[in-house]
């Protein structure tokens, strides 16, 4: 199977842009029907410990997260900005790594660096489109500033 680099770039560009634009339904559509999404501190990953800050091992759990964000969560209103580095093909089976930084700007106009880390994705082809089958978001630190409401 040949891997189309442009399709991979497009997917990562869409991924960040859709979250920052709060287009969460379209964002969910980037995931395969059977998928997993985890946000995990690097410390845990390095030590082989499975605990994650967000652990969604089905599409339905991911949809619940979005519903909670829209209807239930109390969180700081902010504008998010994903800066996603060039994706790198690291293995067979559409295994892709990409570094990322996420900034948040609050309602007082203060911009702060919210998170940095590494996406470790496993992609799959669905009807000639690339979709995310498994997304492991490794945060560089376990110390999340206050709360983590919007997806990384």
């Amino acid at each position, binding site marked *: 199977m040949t891997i189309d680099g442009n399709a991979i770039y497009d997917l990562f560009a869409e991924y960040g842009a859709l979250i920052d634009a709060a287009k969460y339904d379209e964002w969910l559509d980037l995931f395969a029907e059977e998928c997993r999404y985890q946000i995990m501190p690097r410390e845990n990953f390095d030590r082989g410990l499975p*605990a994650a800050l*967000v*652990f969604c091992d089905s599409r339905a759990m991911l949809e619940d997260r979005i519903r909670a964000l829209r209807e239930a969560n109390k969180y700081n209103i902010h504008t998010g900005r994903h800066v996603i580095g060039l994706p790198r093909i690291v293995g067979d089976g559409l295994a892709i790594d990409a570094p990322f930084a996420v900034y948040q700007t609050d309602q007082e106009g203060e911009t702060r660096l919210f998170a940095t880390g590494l996406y470790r994705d496993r992609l799959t082809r669905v009807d000639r489109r690339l979709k995310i089958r498994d997304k492991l978001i490794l945060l560089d630190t376990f110390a999340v500033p*206050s*709360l983590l409401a919007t997806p990384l």
Partner: protein
Amino acid sequence: MLGYADDSPEMTLHRLRQANLVGPAGLVSMEDGEAIELAHRASKPDPDRATVIELGGAGVISDRDYRVTDVPLRGFWSYYAELLGIEPEGAVR
């Protein structure tokens, strides 16, 4: 701590799913992180010592219709110590 060494894989998976409820991204605890961070910032100036943050509450302990100051909490612990016979010297009732 997430679980125990002799947990079955199913139990570990159950705990991983349940852990979605707590922590900075916890479905039931998210905004608590914001409150705790505020308290952390308030106690930061003297990191090598203990910091006490008072929520009002000085003065006479008396019945109140609310719990928005530390008076009712002082009342609770005062009576608790009285009942258990562990009141410190000079305790206020």
